[in-house]
């Protein structure tokens, strides 16, 4: 019995030593916090860019489908969607950094924001378009029959309903985006995942750094999920009977 407690105690002592080695010594925890800041910056700004791009593309596409207008823009959008959704994000990121911005002096953070934003925009576009299509045709007809223009009808009647319908899918897209930014290390950008990587390369201890990185991602995702649930409940107000 005593031996058992002894071994548990040893294990804890070893864990404590590992913890000090990986996070406390030389302020190594800063690799994680600094990395986290970069991860959050990329995610937030890429999400914003993705939303803007996605909504523009979705509106162009559904306007074309419903009215036949914007033919050329629609064709451009389709190429964009095909290319972005047909190639891996990590390749897009590297092409953005090593090819498109190769000869330009530009911060890696900005490159990552652009690459991830453009990538996310394609997925947001299809999500939003499905949301627009999910709104009954009668809604558009009612708006137009009152004399509202196509644009006003879209903005005041269709989009608010479409947004509510796609909110869960949109939230999932941004949770995916958050996790996908972990490939930022491919352009040597010190994000959260890269931070764990750096610690590991200094301490030769993979267990705790990786566990810490995973835990941090998990906490953020859970927080996001919680917030989206709250927002959804608020948007549901009009469904209550």
């Amino acid at each position, binding site marked *: 019995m005593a031996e058992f407690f002894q071994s548990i105690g040893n294990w804890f002592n070893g864990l404590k030593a590992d913890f000090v080695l990986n996070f406390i010594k030389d302020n190594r925890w800063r690799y994680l916090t600094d990395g986290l800041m970069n991860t959050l910056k990329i995610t937030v700004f890429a999400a914003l860019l993705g939303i803007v791009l996605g909504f523009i593309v979705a509106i162009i596409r559904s306007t074309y489908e419903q009215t036949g207008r914007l033919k050329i823009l629609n064709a451009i959008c389709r190429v964009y969607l095909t290319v972005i959704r047909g190639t891996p994000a990590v390749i897009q990121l590297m092409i953005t950094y090593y090819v498109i911005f190769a000869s330009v002096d530009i911060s890696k953070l900005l490159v990552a924001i652009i690459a991830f934003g453009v990538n996310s925009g394609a997925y947001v576009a299809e999500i939003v378009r499905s949301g627009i299509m999910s709104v009954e045709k009668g809604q558009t007809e009612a708006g137009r029959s009152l004399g509202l223009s196509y644009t006003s009808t879209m903005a005041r009647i269709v989009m608010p*309903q479409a947004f509510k319908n796609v909110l869960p899918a949109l939230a999932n897209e941004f949770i995916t985006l958050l996790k996908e930014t972990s490939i930022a290390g491919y352009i040597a950008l010190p994000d959260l995942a890269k931070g764990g990587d750096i610690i590991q390369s200094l301490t030769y201890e993979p267990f705790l750094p990786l566990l810490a990185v995973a835990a941090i991602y998990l906490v953020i995702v859970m927080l996001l999920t919680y917030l989206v649930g709250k927002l959804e409940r608020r948007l549901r107000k009009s469904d209550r009977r």
Partner: protein
Amino acid sequence: MIDVRNLEKAFGDHLVLKGITETIHKGEKVVIVGPSGSGKSTFLRCLNLLETPTGGEIVFDGVDMLDRKTNINRMRMRMGMVFQHFNLFPHLTILKNITLAPVKLGVAGKKEAEENAMRLLEMVHLADKAQSYPAQLSGGQKQRIAIVRALAMNPDVMLFDEPTSALDPEMVGEVLEVMKKLADDGMTMVVVTHEMGFAREVGTRVMFMDEGVIVEQNTPDEFFANPQSPRLKDFLSKVL
């Protein structure tokens, strides 16, 4: 008020309206009846261009509706429409449903539009629902709100596309009552319906459509008492 000349509408190869020529005068209450698939809803929806005609002319108050230069939104502001499935905006309160278009289109200021909306809601006995959402209302209530929403634009003509067809039977009466009141107030109305009682009582003219043409029309009394064509006789024998 509305002049329709040789109106045609085809969906692909299928010709739904086969050249309709008709005039709707101010103050008339035209009721259109006919079997399903006869084109009566399509005809109505062509009047405010929810369906784009493939041939012919529609002239509303002297304005050619199919002229590319015509601002169709401005014309639609003067033609209220009520749909079979109400099509209220589910994300907006009843009050917002009614005031959205008038405020957005500058027909009235926000306060004025809200006062007008409340007055109209009183008329249909639904003033207490102003802050409710459509999902909280019964079908009959929704349709009365839909009528009010169209009326809030002060239209010159009201188009009704089977306004009671999606309602539970016990709710049909409350909607027809509002429509009757509207008719009594002198509104020009074009109504596609299966309610023969309404056609007889409120209509100034009843039209029978079948297979994309107006087969026969008359005053309600003559229409029901003295049908001429075999197709109308057949139709009336089934619905009356």
